[in-house]
């Protein structure tokens, strides 16, 4: 109906381009993010494996740099799988992916600032409050 009305009014390319078209919508829906169920099951399995691995890091009581690097490694892998496959970011247009994924990286700047700040606070506390 909507299309007929627009067509009847004559050539209005801008209006036509942005008018809502149910046929296109249905087609997009049929296509929209169709992936085999197996893919989700495989990712699910991997998330279980990675979670078990990070649990085992604690269970076996690993310490020091080995513990931290393993924890961060498993964390990044899990986060990557969830965002890329479950949230379909791997198939989104780059303009969206970069707009969403780049800003959180800037949190690392904040981390750096707060690490420096807390080192300074700790130093001050040790110097002035340690013996009391």
């Amino acid at each position, binding site marked *: 109906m909507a299309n007929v009305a627009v067509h009847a009014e004559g050539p209005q390319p801008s209006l036509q381009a942005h008018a809502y078209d149910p046929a296109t919508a249905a087609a*997009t829906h049929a296509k929209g*993010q169709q992936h085999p*169920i197996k893919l*989700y099951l495989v990712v699910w399995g991997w998330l279980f494996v990675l979670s078990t691995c990070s649990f085992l890091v*604690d269970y076996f009581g690993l310490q020091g740099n080995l513990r931290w690097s393993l924890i961060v490694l498993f964390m990044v892998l899990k986060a990557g799988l969830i965002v890329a496959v479950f*949230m379909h970011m791997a198939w989104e247009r780059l*303009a*969206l992916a970069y707009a969403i994924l780049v800003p959180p990286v800037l949190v690392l700047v904040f981390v750096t600032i707060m690490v420096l*700040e807390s080192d300074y606070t700790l130093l001050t506390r040790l110097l002035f409050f340690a013996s009391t």
Partner: protein
Amino acid sequence: MAETALTTTGESSARVAGWRGIAADWSSDQRAFKNVSWGKAMMWIFLLSDTFIFSCFLLSYMTARMSTTVPWPDTSEVFALDLGGKHIPMILIAIMTFVLISSSGTMAMAVNFGYRRDRVKTAALMLATAAFGATFVSMQGFEWTKLIMEGVRPWGNPWGAAQFGSCFFLITGFHGTHVSIGVIFLIAIARKVLRGDFDVEKRGFFTSRKGHYEIVEITGLYWHFVDLVWVFIFAFFYLW
């Protein structure tokens, strides 16, 4: 009536690869996200802002923990449970992690069946997701009760640095709230799916826009994000 706001993606124009494509999309007229509906784009932007909220919580936890002169409580022992006569460290948190990952798995499949217009399977998987979420929140309730009984308060605890309690209650409490809201969201959308609202494109009571199965994917984005936040909390708060 022609809808002025695009609720679906329409056909996507050809894209140039890499940075050139991003610049072309962002500098073009009217829409930066060419083949993404406003609903999905707004959910992503909300999730981005939520990312910053949780980042700030985890950062304040990091700052408190790095700058205190008192030793931090041993989380491995604090969250240990005695199961069947055996003392297992961190076991409750591990089970909670598996429950939440499983809920993410069922959610991902619900999105898939939604786009195939399989009403019953979509609704069933969404309700399964909600059930996993409710299980997670109840286990968190158990964990909170246990810790409060043992004397953990936002201003102190029996094992070490006083900030442990405030960080714990703030971070897990905020995450638990997100899970609870997600459960409500899931049940509401599952009810609409089951009723066939999206097959007839029934208009929503609040927005009065036509409903589409894409809302299942948008709900899924929120739910996976909740799981994603837990990945970071699990790593930084519980395991570190």
